[in-house]
């Protein structure tokens, strides 16, 4: 009796091709060091569905894929509306490897099934929730093609759920400043994380202080725009 049929079955059904992969799975994609602690294995998992929900979730998703696009991985956005190119660029996404799909919302699953063939990362705001059967097929396809799939609405079957529970913008100063940064509190399987998204530079940044109250009150606004 040989192990070949078993190996084939494992690689087909679970996307596992070597013994090491059985234990570690696929190496996750590198993400910005500020965002890395949110993920169980320190990076964007491949062959799995990650959900990112709550306020600032689109910014968070774009910041997450930034490093992958800089590594020449192709990324597509589906159902995102019209993203602002300037903010995509600010978050560090390589514009040469990002494509935005403007397709009818009810066709998102069809679009995904085509893009899955050659793309590495998909950011999807699904127009509707798939049925159990469609979801199983999607999961199998995602696993087989080893792509990273970020959904902006919660979806059963996802392996990592990141929920942004609180956003606090600072810098507006009741008519005397402008938006500077947003303190985000996110909950994932690894715990509760705080960081600035976007930070003062437009990219993710470490939270300024351990407590949010201090973080905001200690930020003086020197320049005021009148």
């Amino acid at each position: 009796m040989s192990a070949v049929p078993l190996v084939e079955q494992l690689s087909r059904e679970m996307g596992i091709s070597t013994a090491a992969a059985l234990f570690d799975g696929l190496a996750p994609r590198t993400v910005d060091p500020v965002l890395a602690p949110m993920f169980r294995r320190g990076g964007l998992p491949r062959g799995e569905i990650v959900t990112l929900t709550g306020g600032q979730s689109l910014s968070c998703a774009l910041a997450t894929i930034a490093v992958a696009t800089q590594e020449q991985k192709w990324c597509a956005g589906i159902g995102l509306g019209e993203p602002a190119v300037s903010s995509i660029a600010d978050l560090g996404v390589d514009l040469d490897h990002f494509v935005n799909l403007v397709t009818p919302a009810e066709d998102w699953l069809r679009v995904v099934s085509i893009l899955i063939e050659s793309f590495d990362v998909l950011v999807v705001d699904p127009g509707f929730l798939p049925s159990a059967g469609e979801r199983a097929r999607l999961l199998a396809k995602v696993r087989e093609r080893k792509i990273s799939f970020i959904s902006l609405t919660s979806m059963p079957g996802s392996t990592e759920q990141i929920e942004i529970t609180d956003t606090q913008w600072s810098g507006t100063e009741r008519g005397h400043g402008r938006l500077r940064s947003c303190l985000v509190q996110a909950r994932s399987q690894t715990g509760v994380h705080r960081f600035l998204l976007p930070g003062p530079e437009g990219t993710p940044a470490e939270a300024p202080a351990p407590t949010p109250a201090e973080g905001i009150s200690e930020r003086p606004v020197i320049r005021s725009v009148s």
Partner: protein
Amino acid sequence: MVAANAPARAAGIALGNNKRAVGYRCPEAHVVAWDEEADNRHFSAGVGALEELVARFTLLSPGTLAIPLDSLKHGYADEPSAVEALISALVSATGWEFFPGIAGTVFAAVLAAGQARRVEPGETAEFLAVQPVSTLEYAGAGATELIDTFTQLGLRTLGDLAALDARDVNSRFGALGKRAHDLATGVEWTPLSDHVREERLNVELGLDTPTTRSDTLGFLTRQLAAELLTAVRSRGLVCTQITIELIAVSGQSSKRTWRIEDMNENTIADRLRWQAEGWLAGATRQGPAAARTGPQTGSGPQAQAGSAPQIGTAPDDPGPDPEDFSEEGIIAVGLVAAELTTPIGATRSLFDENTGQVTHTLERLQGLFGPDSVLVPGLQGGWDPAETNLWTPWQQAASPVRSPGAPWPGALHAPRPTTVEHLPVDVLAAGGRPVGARPAGLESAPYAIRFPTGTTEEIADYSGSWPVESGWWDPAKAIYRTRLQVVTGSGQALLLSKENGQWYITGRYR
């Protein structure tokens, strides 16, 4: 002052003068703002005469052209007679004065032309050695700084620079320094690309009766495209971009440039079909009011007969039936080879990761959902994200409307909103009155925001307002706009802008 003609120079106007000095020396002088494109156009049209005389030449810049001497060897007995023939032909064709210069490298020849002299073969290095280092301006943008540095280092002539070791110059000044050193020592940098003959490779086809059927158009295009590609191939070239122009009965036209990796008649026909379908569907969606303007210049019974059912159909019916979805139809098709290159230039690089597969996937999506469904991002100039956005359909040439290089005072700083919208809203002050905006600031503090759905949300915090005023010199282009960032009670940040007395959500931070 960058250029002056002979009568102007006779009046004492010199290069580098400012406008006031010109007016002082010669009040009747006509001063025109410099426009590189006009220069280029004017010049390349003028030197068309040269195409009949020499096989190869290169336009270096408006006013300068280079001819390799070996291309003249077969046509003329010796150099002087060749130069004489060329100059007299150019002068009689254009009426401009030309100065010839002959030297071992193009750079040296340009310098020699300034003195209208011939540098003997092998003497190019000596000729260059005595030239001042400021002549390196020829090397292009960025050279000015380098020239200053060289002068400060005591390198006054090209000879001083050439005396340095090439490796030292390279390690200290980088690629530009290396280029300058090469120029100074008389080493040719790259062989100049030859001027490709200015024939426009294009084909046109007029249809006997206007059609709205994209399959008919696709069929006709296949033959037309084959004709064009044969013409391109017979010149030993490859076409990488193609411009497709469709002309409707009403005289309107749709012109798009497509980049196609595997250009053949089928892929061209596909693009034309997409373009035609998108255009006709768009024209139908505008409704009868827009459509009725069509047949005023329409000719033939086809347009007239078809107009009645069109107005009858409801505008919200996008009309999947191609038979009667537009009363006009397409009467002529044109294809222009927009970008030609040598076959080696068209091969795909080994280092592009799976672009072939990505191209295939995206083309499939374009085939299913229309070409405008797959958009790639780009940036252009503008104040707000909605203006800087430049989403271009995959494999079409981007055409920015506003220059990103120009200054945009008052442009939005990072953090910028993630998505762009244009949704009318009401911004209310504490008493329920709408908030007015003046260039100096808001009239009252915003308190709540009312969305078109009817829901009202409290404004927790708001930024200073900042105005954009532009185009006040031209009523058609005038923009008066006040921007404001607000954070609603639920913690959502929005970018609002007020234009023509109405507040809009123009961006959402999400």
